[in-house]
């Protein structure tokens, strides 16, 4: 399956659209306290907001001419960012379309169907905003085109990856016909093991999906006005792609699976940001090494010592005696004093870190201050490296006995950590001034 095998009749003008579903403020609460300061899609990992990584994945696909970002965040929370990045991607039109309420995955697409259909794209890409990774979008498009060329009528191609038996039940599980890759069974978060093939939340979708959603929409509307469905905090117009489309349609045989074992991860909890940060930095190493620190040798004594993959914003001041890395991102206007050691962490913009301090497995929020000789440390919850296909464990905040589970440490914005203290496995809410050491606590 290569680009040269495009089926006849597709023409030179073929265009694709991309839809990124970012949800709204009620989503992403597990990302607190970081999502208190900024909408989760704008949270930077590897120096770039989460959503921008997804935009960049779409821009890589030559046929993508327009990216539509769907969500119910207030427009002024998202559009200034879109305005900022638009000049970086001149070949693609990027727009934010605000849902008036929470419409869920398919509901949102249906609501803005005219925007998606405009320009007559052959198909469109859907990406859930809470995943990160190295998506084979071009390959998926080709896979779907090839199916069409061979006389099939693919409605949806689902990007899938392998999980462990144990972890698979936390995802959408797919059973397929191994030869045709057609989906034969789909279940969302089953109680018992169904399949280790899981849904990555990335799709290539045919425009034929709209009549199907339309039918569901009409049925739900009728049921609602007959009083047969209740709105439990969500509107009857809320339609989920997985529950309402994929699950009922497996019998039709026109849903397909495209497998990838490239990097992929959910980014639901703040803890997973550290993991996603590492994954994206590793992707820079393969694709855009110029984004990584230490690649512009020749600056002499003015650059700190770097270990592994590190992103440092050009405006950040990092003392040459520091040791940074691996897997660290340092944001805009950050100042880091002599002898500081940082590993496996994200330091957000305008933060000051004083001399001799150590930071590990921590997210330091915007405008924070950390004194001298302090230690800010979390516990990684990385996937088990000894288990193939293991994913990040999204452990609950609290253990069964009511104790906080050890996790990465998160400092909200404007947090002040004094000199010579230790902050271990703790979550500190914004604007807090600590006056002593803390371990395993949430500090309100």
């Amino acid at each position: 399956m290569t680009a040269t095998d495009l089926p006849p009749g597709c023409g030179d003008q073929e265009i694709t659209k991309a839809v990124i579903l970012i949800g709204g403020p009620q989503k992403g609460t597990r990302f607190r306290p970081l999502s208190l300061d900024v909408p989760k899609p704008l949270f930077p990992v590897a120096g770039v907001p989460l959503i921008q990584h997804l935009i960049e994945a779409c821009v890589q696909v030559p046929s993508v001419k327009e990216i539509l970002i769907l969500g119910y965040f207030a427009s002024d929370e998202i559009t200034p960012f879109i305005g900022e990045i638009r000049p970086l991607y001149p070949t693609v039109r990027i727009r934010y379309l605000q849902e008036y309420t929470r419409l869920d995955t398919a509901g949102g697409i249906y609501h803005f169907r005219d925007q998606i259909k405009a320009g007559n794209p052959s198909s469109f890409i859907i990406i859930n905003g809470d995943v990160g990774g190295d998506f084979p979008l071009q390959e998926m498009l080709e896979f779907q085109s090839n199916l069409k060329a061979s006389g099939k009528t693919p409605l949806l191609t689902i990007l899938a990856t392998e999980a462990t038996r144990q972890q698979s039940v936390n995802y959408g599980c797919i059973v397929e016909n191994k030869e045709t890759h057609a989906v034969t069974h789909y279940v969302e978060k089953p109680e018992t093991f169904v399949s280790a093939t899981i849904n990555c939340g990335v799709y290539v979708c045919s425009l034929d999906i709209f009549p199907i959603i339309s039918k569901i929409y009409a049925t739900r509307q009728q049921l609602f006005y007959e009083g047969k469905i209740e709105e439990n905090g969500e509107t009857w117009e809320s339609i989920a792609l997985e529950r309402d489309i994929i699950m009922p349609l497996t019998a039709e045989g026109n849903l397909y699976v495209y497998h990838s074992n490239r990097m992929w991860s959910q980014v639901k909890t703040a803890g997973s940001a550290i993991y996603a940060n590492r994954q994206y930095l590793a992707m820079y190493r393969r694709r855009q090494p110029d984004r990584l620190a230490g690649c512009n040798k020749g600056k002499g004594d003015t650059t700190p010592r770097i270990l592994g993959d590190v992103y440092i914003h050009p405006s950040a001041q990092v003392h040459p005696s520091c040791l940074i890395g691996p897997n660290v991102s340092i944001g805009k206007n950050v100042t880091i004093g002599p002898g500081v050691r940082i590993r496996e962490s994200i330091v957000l913009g305008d933060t000051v870190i004083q001399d001799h301090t150590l930071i590990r497995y921590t997210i330091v929020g915007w405008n924070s201050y950390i004194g001298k000789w302090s230690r800010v440390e979390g516990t990684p919850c990385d996937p088990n490296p000894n288990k193939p296909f293991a994913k990040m464990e999204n452990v609950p905040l609290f253990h069964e006995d009511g104790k906080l589970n050890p996790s990465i440490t998160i400092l909200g914005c404007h947090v002040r950590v004094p000199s010579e203290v230790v902050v271990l496995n703790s979550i500190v809410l914004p604007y807090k001034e600590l006056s002593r050491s803390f371990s395993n606590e949430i500090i309100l």
Partner: protein
Amino acid sequence: MMKSEESSIIGNMKALILVGGYGTRLRPLTLFRPKPLVEFANKPILEHQLDALVDAGVRQVVLAVSYRAEEMEQELKTYAERKGVKLIFSHETEPLGTAGPLALARKYLESDSEPFFVLNSDIICDFPFKDMVAFHKNHGGEGTIAVTKVEEPSKYGVVIYDEKGKVESFMEKPQEFVSNKINAGLYILNSKVLDRIELRPTSIEKEIFPVMASSQQLYAYELKGYWMDIGQPKDFLTGMCLYLQSEGQNSETKLKFRAGAGIVGNVLVDESVKIGSNCRIGPNVTIGKDVVIEDGVCIKRCTVLSGSKIGSHSWLDSCIVGWKCKIGQWVRMENVTVLGEDVIVDDEVYINGGKVLPHKAISSSVSVPQIIM
């Protein structure tokens, strides 16, 4: 002139130091080294007592030992020669308690009729021996026991005495407050007291002193300065602070305190020590021979024993670092962490109240106080 005055008070007085047992309370420092040889403020604990005795004019000291006598004899040989003091090792083959060793060493102690000193080996204070002797000769009783005021008397043996100092009774670890004056572990006894002690395991506090008190032969001498039983790590560090503070205020101190950039408060550093740039050392730190401290290190309230190395940007508070330890970079140790000899602590490790046995390598953090075997 001072000399002759001293010797006129002390005369031919001898001393016995209860060096005693295994020093288990100060482990892991005392696993492979006798406690009296562990350095306190860059000098073996025992030498603090010996120096004070020698300065007061004592020329013969009996060391009542039950363990590692040979090692101590070897180590103290040159000391004895240098100071012109005779050290007699009285080796008990079975534990004899706190009084039994006096009976065992009787022949040395009663060679003349002079009173003699008895010292518990874990005590650190100003050792006002001359003043104590004057007090002893003045009251005329058989024994003098030094007492000191403490905040929490329930951990110690409390001494009850009248306004002249005559001891009325003893209360071992009283549950209810009776007095804040406790037995400080320094005594002067007339040789007659030896008649009261048999050669068997005997406690001087429980079996000898109460009898002496009831026959009105025991007097309490109140220590004026600081006092500490440094037999366990927490108290060792508290004692170090008290000692440095006291010496720091003493205009006649023999200690050479370090001063200069990056030094805060009373800091005792051996001349051989190398300290890097941008460090902050002190207050209340002692650093032993040949220690190397790299750049950007912060040390407060710690004893670092000889031959150790502290890696750059590390932070240490309230720790005892044993001999020849290697502490990595960006290490944090606090809360009475004690490292035995030759412990290696890897870069970026955090140790909170860890007691680490000798020759151990620590590669991951210990965030809750515990013993690391």
